């Protein structure tokens, strides 16, 4: 049981071939493209959702920040679909790997910060010191603000990894507990119910993506455009 618990997080390889590449590319199969005005139901649904999300999310930044719309919408689609596919039985979720999430978080965060530094140098540097601090506290506050800036990409990546991994682990554990308790009757019903509720809550992994992109967006907004 102990070894099996973490076995689902091993990078899938088959005969030495990286099967994980195929698994990462699989969600792209589920989002067809079309250049028609009136599409089939799948594409229409996806377009409607995408318009909804992009209108709520991209109305906040100014036109300079809105150039990131394509990138952010691809990001939310990718993370959302990957997390939701990971809820299917026996599947592998690439976003449980910290390496992948760091690979997503660091470039995006660095791009936002560097854009801010290039275009509005004074304002970006001014972020390191909040308004109205008493003079003796200034050196310490600058250090703290610097640390809080550099911890942002790490926080983004670790937040996503930890949430998804913890959710999957809990499902495994509680499912295993239910099976083991099957022979000892009354508690089984209660635990199965807990599993059901937990899975539903976990379906809000989509909310997780919301958190990811939204946090990224807020940080981007602050850095670029004040």
């Amino acid at each position, binding site marked *: 049981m102990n070894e*099996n618990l973490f*076995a*689902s997080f091993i990078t*899938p390889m*088959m005969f030495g071939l990286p*099967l994980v590449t195929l698994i990462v590319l*699989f969600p792209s*199969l*589920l989002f*067809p493209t079309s250049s028609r005005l009136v599409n*089939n*139901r*799948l594409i229409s649904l996806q377009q409607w959702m995408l318009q909804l999300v992009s209108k709520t999310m991209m109305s906040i930044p100014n036109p300079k920040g809105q150039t990131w719309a394509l990138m952010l919408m691809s990001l939310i689609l990718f993370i959302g679909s990957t997390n939701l*596919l990971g809820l*299917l*039985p*026996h*599947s*592998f979720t690439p976003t449980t790997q910290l390496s992948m999430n760091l690979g997503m978080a660091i470039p995006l965060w660095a791009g936002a910060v560097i854009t801010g530094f290039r275009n509005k140098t004074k304002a970006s540097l001014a972020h390191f010191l909040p308004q109205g601090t008493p003079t003796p506290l200034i050196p310490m506050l600058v250090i703290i603000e610097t640390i809080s800036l550099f911890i942002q990409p790490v926080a983004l990546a670790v937040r996503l990894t930890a949430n998804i991994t913890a959710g999957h682990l809990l499902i495994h554990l509680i499912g295993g507990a239910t*099976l083991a308790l099957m022979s000892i009757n009354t508690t089984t019903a209660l635990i199965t119910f807990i599993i059901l509720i937990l899975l539903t809550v976990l379906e809000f992994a989509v909310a997780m993506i919301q958190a990811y992109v939204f946090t990224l967006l807020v940080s981007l907004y602050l850095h670029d455009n004040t």
Partner: protein
Amino acid sequence: SQDSKMASVVPLKEKKLLEVKLGELPSWILMRDFTPSGIAGAFQRGYYRYYNKYVNVKKGSIAGLSMVLAAYVFLNYCRSYKELKHERLRKYH
């Protein structure tokens, strides 16, 4: 006379699988295009065949997407069968 004879014999390469006779099967398989672009073309054709039959229709149902997800679950099960073998309900493992 000679034209009709040539017209009635379809070259082996262009026959579809269900039209190939059993004795011709090995040579048919060997004649398939196994270059990377050939294999990519085969995947593309298969994808569009499924897509146009089940998804790209006027009143597509949930079945089009569900079949893909079911196949995904099944393939993942096959992939992790080796580890899952040990989790069967047995008295002695």
